[in-house]
Each structure stands twice: as C-alpha cells, then as structure tokens.
C-alpha cells in the first residue's frame, strides 16, 4: 500500500465513524438513517427523509451541521411559501450618496446543510425552486447566477400520513434525491434513551469532527477514486434494469406493479454509495454486496408503481427486495 493514499483512506474511515458516533449521541436508534445521511454528504447527494413528525429529523440535520462544522439552515415549507423565500431576492439598496441599486439578498438555500421541512406542503412552483439548487448547485435570480456553497446537502422531510393540502413531489424532483430514507418510530429501549437524554439536566454535547467544508470536499474526492470493475458495475445495471417492467430481466412484481422503473441516476446513486460502503468495510474496491446494501435507499423513490400496485398496497421496497433476491450479490 502506498504511503500517500493510506492515511487519506484511514482518515476517511475515521472521520466517517466519528461523525456517526457524535450524531448517535443525539439521535437514538437511527443508525441506518445517520449512515445514509453521511453517505449522501460524502457523495454529494441529497436525502429525502420520510417519517412522522417528532422523530428527530430536524435534530438530525442540526446535529450533522454541528459535527461537521457546516452552515445549517432550515425552511419550513408552507403553501404560501414563495420561491424567493427560498433562493433569495433582489432588494433596492440606497447607499450613503442616495444612489439606489439592486442588491441580492441570499435566501436560506445558501447554506451547506439545508433542511427543507415538510417539503410536500409547498406548491410545485416553490418546490421547483429547489430543483436548480439541488442539481446544479447554483441559483439564478434576476438573470444572475449565484453559486451555492460547497458542500451543499439538502435534507428534505415529508409526512407520509397527512395527504390533505399537500403537493406530492413530482418524479423529476424525487429523482434528484440520492436517497429516500424512512425514519422509523423508535423501539421501547430507544424511546427510553431518548427520554433520558432529553428530559434530564445534562444533555449530550456534540463535538466538531470536521474543521471546515474543504475537508469534507477532500474526502469526497477520495470516495470517487475507489476502483470498480465492469463485472461489479454490471450488477448495478442489472438491478436498475430489473425495475423496468418492459425489461427482460424484470421480476414478476416489477412486471405487474411498476409503471416506471429507476432512472440512470439510480445507478449512479448505487455506485457512489457502494464506494463509500467499500471504504467503510476496509476494502479499496467495490463489491456487489456494497451495491446491494444501498439498493433500497437509492431506488425506492425512483420506482413508480402503477394503479394496481397502489390499490393492492404494494410498495417499491417489495419490488426491490424481489430484485435483490433474483439477482443475488
């Protein structure tokens, strides 16, 4: 092993695990959620968190911001929220000489970590304001393009129960999220731990693991260098193609209940996540098991079920599970 690469890889693993453990101080029993959020952070993706209110989604993002020492902002999406409320707007500024000029006032989107709380409550027009920011990492206001700070991570939340007065995210916007993570309700023991930590006099304190954003960006570069051979990449392609009902490799559930399969972004998400999983496993190459590990989070929001599937209560997770069973790692 070369001397120059080994410390960087070791640093990545150490940093990742430390952030994980720091977040676990505040977030109880959501280890897979924490890991998925960190994977998204180091791959440059965004995460859609789905769960009922009160499960610590906001706490999760705030804790992450504290641990990685990144700028954190939060937007509560409401039906009357306007795009300018997100990206910012030009206001008239009068200087000491009385001259008036337009000056751009940045919106809350200009942060490293953005929590879009209850994103499905805003109108599609407002939701689409996030599209450019999430994909291109910049916003355009008044014909002027404004670059977003890097790293830029959007953590959007949505409530799966209340559907009245909501605007479900369009497929195009869903596709821009690297992962869709389901935040489950804590178990009995986990609930006890939450109560102990939040109702006592001494609340846990999160330490900074990463000093600045540059360190996060440097670790991102390491992730993308992990080698991946074609045979392993073929597995990711197979999984994505198997979600398409018209594909020969489609599984029975996919053929029956899926309207649209995963997009190529799904395959990208699988590969990028797999590289991080490989590094975390102490390897320097991607294996098929790494790809399978992130399949549910990377593909579940990219599979659109048909009416029959919705009517029969099928979920995209069932389709993915069958695909993984048919195509073992």
């Amino acid at each position, binding site marked *: *092993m*070369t001397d*120059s*690469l*080994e410390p960087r*890889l070791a640093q990545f693993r150490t940093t990742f695990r430390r952030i994980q453990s720091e977040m676990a101080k505040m977030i109880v029993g959501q280890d897979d959620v924490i890991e998925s959020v960190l994977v998204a952070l180091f791959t440059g993706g965004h995460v859609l968190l789905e769960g009922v209110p009160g499960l610590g989604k906001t706490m999760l993002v705030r804790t992450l911001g504290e641990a990685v020492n990144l700028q954190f902002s939060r937007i509560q999406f409401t039906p009357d929220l306007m795009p300018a409320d997100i990206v910012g707007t030009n206001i008239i500024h009068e200087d000491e000489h009385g001259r008036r000029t337009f000056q751009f006032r940045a919106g809350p989107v200009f942060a490293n970590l953005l929590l879009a709380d209850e994103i499905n409550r805003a109108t599609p027009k407002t939701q689409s304001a996030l599209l450019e920011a999430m994909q291109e990492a910049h916003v355009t206001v008044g014909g002027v393009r404004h670059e977003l700070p890097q790293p830029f991570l959007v953590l959007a939340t949505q409530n799966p129960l209340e559907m009245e007065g909501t605007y479900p995210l369009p497929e195009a916007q869903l596709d821009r999220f690297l992962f869709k993570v389901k935040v489950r309700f804590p178990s009995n023991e986990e609930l006890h731990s939450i109560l102990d930590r939040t109702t006592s006099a001494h609340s846990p304190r999160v330490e900074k693991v990463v000093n600045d954003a540059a360190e996060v960006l440097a670790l991102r570069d390491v992730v993308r*260098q*992990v*080698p991946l*051979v*074609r*045979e*392993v990449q073929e597995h990711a392609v197979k999984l994505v193609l198997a979600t398409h009902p018209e594909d020969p490799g489609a599984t029975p559930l996919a053929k029956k209940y899926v309207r649209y399969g995963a997009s190529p972004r799904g395959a990208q998400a699988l590969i990028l996540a797999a590289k991080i999983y490989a590094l975390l*496993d102490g*390897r*320097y*190459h*991607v*294996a*098929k*098991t*790494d790809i399978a590990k992130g399949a549910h989070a990377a593909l579940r929001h990219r599979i659109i079920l048909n009416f029959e599937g919705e009517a029969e209560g099928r979920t995209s997770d069932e389709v993915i599970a069958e695909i993984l069973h048919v195509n073992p790692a």
Partner: protein
Amino acid sequence: MKPADEILRTLRALRWRMALGDFLRSAARAALFFFGVLVVFTAVAWWRDGFRPDLTAVPIALTWPFIFGVAAAMLITALKFPPQERVARALDAAGATRDRFVTALRLAEKSHADEFERTALAEIAAWARARKLGALLPLRLPRELPWIAAPVAMLALLWWSAMNANAIKDARAAQETAAISSTAKQLDRLGAAADILAQENDDKLLKLVADRLRQSAEQMRAEASEGKDAHKAALRELAQLDDFVKDLRRPEAATPDELKALADALAKHEQTREAAKDIAGGNLAEAAKKLAETAKDESSAEQVNATLKQALDHLAERREEVSKQIEKLQQAGEGGRRDLLKRIAEALNDLAQQGKNVARDGKGSPKSEQKKMTDDDLRRLLGALEGIKDQQQRQQEGDGPQGGQPQPGEQKEGEANGDGKVAMLNFPTGEKPGETPGESIHFPSGKPGNGTDRDTTKDPFGAKSAAPNDAARKEQNAGQLGEGESLSALIPSAAAGDEKAVRRYRELYDAAAFAAEDAVTQENIPLGARFLIRRYFQAIRPKQ
C-alpha cells in the same frame, strides 16, 4: 513479486484444481449418459423379444459406460479448460471474497494501474495470502454419481425380466415341442413311406407329397421350438396339407396333349386356324371367343361344327381310354396313389376337425386328449399308408387283392391290419374325433340349461314376439361363422313426430305469471324464497 503477478499465479494454480473438478463432473454425466444409452438399447432388445442376456458379460457391460464416460470427460475437459476469469468468478461465488478475485484479475490486466488500483491489488494479494484458497474450490464427488444407480437398476430389471421370460419361453418351447413331437414324427414317417412308394413307382407326385409332409413336420417343430402355439401350428399345417392333397385329387383339366390334339384338329380348317393358334398358345379364352364368332358365320358353321365334333369325339375317346386304363389300374390295385391321397385327405380332414372342435369348445377336451386323438388319427393314416404299401408289394409279387380282405378305408374300426397297426379313417355317424358320444350337443349359452322349459318353442331364444310398434324394424344378422342368430330392433322415440305447440308461449307465460305473482304475494311463502321465484319467472320470460 508484484501483487498482480502473485494473484495471477494463484489463479493459474487453481485452474488445474477446477479442471479436475470439471473432469469428475463430466465423467459422471457422460457415464450417466452412456448408461442411459445402454438402458435404451437393452430396452429395445428386450421389447423385441429376442434378448438373451449373458450373465458373464454383465461386468463388462457395466464397465463400458464408465470407460466411455472417462474418455468423453477427458475430451470435454481438454476442450473447455477453465480460463482464469472462470476461476476468479468461481472463487468469488464460493466464498466471502467480496468480488476480490474478479476485481484483481481486471486490475492486473491493466497495463497502467493508478495508485488506488495498486492499493486495491495489494490489499487483495494480502487477503489471498492469509487464506487457503483451495478450500474455496473443493473436490467433491459429483452430484450425478448416485444417479448412475438408476440406470443400473433399470438394466438389472431388464436383464432379470429377459432371463425370466427366456426361461418361461424355453419351458414352453420344450412343452410345445413335446406336444407335437409325435405328430411330427408321424408326418415324418408318413413322408418317408410316401417317399419309398414314390421311389418304387417312380411317381413324382408322391415324391412331392412326401416332401410336403416332411416340410410340414419341420415347420411344426420350428414353431414349437420358438415357443409358439404348437397345436395351432399343427392344425394349420394339417389344413394346408389337406388343401394340398385336395388339389392333387381334383380332376385334372385338359392335359397339354389333349389341348395339342384339339389344336391340331382345329388347324386343319381355315376358319378355325386362328382359334387353334390361341389354343396352342394357351390362350383358351380368346380361342373360345373366336370359335363363337366363327360359329355365327352360317357358311362355315357347319364345317366348323363338324370339325369340333370330330375333335371332341377324338378327345372323348382318349378320355375314355384313359378312364378305362385307370379303372383297370384300380381294379388291378394300381389305384394306390389316388387312394393314398384320398386317405391322406380324409385323415387330415379329421385332424383339422378335431382341432376346430377343441378350439371352439375350449374346455371340451384337454390338450392331452386332443394330442392323443391326433396321434391316433395319424396312426390310422400311417396304417392306411402301410396297408397301401403292403398292397403294392403284393401287387408287385402278382397277388391281387383278396376278396375277403377289406380295402383301405373300408377296414372296420379297431381292426388291426397286417402289421398290427390300426387303420381307422371312418368315424361313427354323428360323432367327431375328439368327442365322446353325447358331447356333440351344442349349447348356445355355452352350458346346459336348468331343465325348465320356458317356452313352447324349440328356438333357444324363445318365440319371436311382435314388434314394439309398426315403426319398429327388426333385423336378423347372420354371424359370419354361423354361430347362431341374433336379433336387433330399432325403436323410434315416441316424440319423433312433427308435433308443434298449440298455444303461443307468450300466452302461456302471461297466464302463468299472474298466477305465480299471486302465489308469491301470499304470506306463507318466505320472503327470501319470493325473490327466487320472481327470478325464476324472469328467467323464463319470453324474449321481446
């Protein structure tokens, strides 16, 4: 050594191990295939009923599929020697290698690996060094090997079945051969006697008869040795001999000499010359046609008729001369051949009749009795032949037939001839060979009745009753074998007429519907049932 070279060397070493595993699998599969082929061939041979397995060859037979399997496996393994890529895939599939070997192989093939790839190769080489990779490719007995027991068991069953069948067949052949041996011997002796007689008289016809008798005996023996029904074969041969003898005894048509004489007579006249040519050429039908045409011609009819009359008179004279000569020969004891043929025919008839009776009655007489009767009849036949022979000998010595000595065929039943052999060709009236007196009664039902006469008619089926109606048709189908009469009647159905409804269905429905509705509304019908009744009437409602 570089990590890439180290990994490639490891994969090369494991190729031979994988090839050995492939060889074992291929050998087992090929052996299974060849065992299957052997089973198919054995089954075909067994099915064709000519399979005689040799127990001493069983080990060799069981060895050949293995030898062929090994040879085929060597060929297959040589042709499909596992490449390194397959070894890498097998290693990754066998153990928790996390796709290390496939990745290493691909990275090692790269001419310029980057830093991260070299790091990955080093990690994989270190991982491989720390483990026994041979355990990931274990050499196991092929799964197909136990399946070889199936074709071996099938072979054993086929062999056992064939040996069993052969033993039964041999026993039956011996039984059948023993059953017809005396019959065949009698035919042989009869043929030998006929042969001697033919040689003594230089009679080609008798020689032919002798040959035919010997052939029949050989045929009977051959069929018996094959385990076929010897009695049936004996009956068939006897029937054929009977036909043969009848053909010999049939009055001859005009001989070639006679036809030549007739042709010569007709050739003397111009009108009948063409017909003479046809007769000489053997075309008798054409000759008759031409003679008929010639006879229509009045001018030549008289002359032709005279010629024909002359020719026919000449033929009649010759026939008369021949008849006289035959009569003289018969009177002088020269009728031996015709008598012999007659006696053979009668004896064969009796034998055939016996066989038919046995075949029809089934349980009427056991086989042993049938055999006994056949032997007896043949003995009589032989006795007749011996009698003829004695007669012939006496004739040659100048002694004519003695007045008090009965002729063959006239000999009394049970009376021994000169050699002490019995010559019985005639049977008591109303009895058949193989039947005891009284057994000749034939029951239509196959068994005697209960003694109660159910009808006054003598018809075993009872008196014929009148037809069911005028339209009935009765048919009497005579059986092909004349085994009795049968009666069949065709009875047309009662509603076969063209009757039509006298009331319109709608009128009938309307009348019934009101009544039904009234009935439904009554309180004594359960509410649930009312719905069903309404549904029923709705279902039979006439279509609009």
